[in-house]
């Protein structure tokens, strides 16, 4: 349940950005949550809803988009979406796979109301 720690850190960033952009209110927060990020979108949602009370984002909605694991084979070039976490190329069997996405845990964008 380290999602609480992640959300606590998210709010630090939200407060900073709100000051920087002169926001009156934050209305939406968009995250990209890789399937291999180690964080669970539902738990991020619960933690966010707990944490947001009495903050500048008290009315904000969290949009946590799950990002699938995508790899590119460095031998045959095949780009594949992996749902089994097997790091072997589906086309040629090579183990030389480059991860394109699926490990990220990103604050993508913030919707805010400004003066």
């Amino acid at each position, binding site marked *: *349940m*380290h999602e609480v*720690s*992640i959300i606590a*850190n*998210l709010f*630090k*960033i939200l407060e900073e*950005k709100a000051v920087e*952009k002169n*926001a*009156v209110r934050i*209305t939406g927060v968009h*995250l990209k949550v890789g399937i*291999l*990020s*180690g*964080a669970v979108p539902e738990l991020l949602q619960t933690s966010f809803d707990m944490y947001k009370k009495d903050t500048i984002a008290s009315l904000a909605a969290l949009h946590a988009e799950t990002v699938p694991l995508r790899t590119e084979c460095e031998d045959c070039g095949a780009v594949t979406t992996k749902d*089994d*976490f*097997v*790091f*072997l190329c589906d086309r040629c069997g090579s*183990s030389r796979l480059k991860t394109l996405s699926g490990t*990220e*845990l*990103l*604050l*993508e*964008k*913030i*919707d*805010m*109301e*400004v*003066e």
Partner: protein
Amino acid sequence: MKEKEVLVLEDLLGSNNKIAAEIRAKLTGRGILPINLMSSPGSGKTSLLERLAEHLQPKYKMAVIEGDIETERDAERIRAKGVPAWQITTGGACHLDAKMVGKLFPKIPPDLNFLFIENVGNLVCPASYDLGESIRCVLLSTPEGDDKPKKYPKAFTTADCLVITKSDLVPPLPFNIERAQQEAREMNPSLQHFITSAVLDTGIDTLAAYLIDRLERIRRRHA
């Protein structure tokens, strides 16, 4: 009042990762190899460290950072082996983070060779936190079952080595070592594999040799 969309693209673990990178650079720069041990509770992290102390101590200096929710018990076991140990009690938190490790930095002797960080027993949350380690080591004990790698993909895909512990218990168990290793290998082809028993003191010498080899590489790089 107007609506505005602000593009950020910031890593939510970025502040942790930044501290971790600083820790790694400082430690390896001094010729110290930091190792993060992760596993379920009770899979034998402390017992493995006790045995590693016997194999490494004659020639090398090691120290241990112990992460637990409560108690000094693990640190006391390590100190009984003549190894400096510092306990971090997280008071409920399910993982260590780089900041907690960084706070202990002033205590780390400059002539150290190996710094082991025994994470809180948990195969889920610790996997998301870089502690500044050069080697991330996952332990899997035979009573836990050989089906664990795919259940904990973050831990097994980010590890550098997999240490199967309690191999002496295999005969009565349905644990198939080859099956566990094969599953982990598919998820992480560059994973290094070790099979150990702390009770019988088997396989610990091979693991110690691997760590010494990694230490020598760091020393050469920073010589």
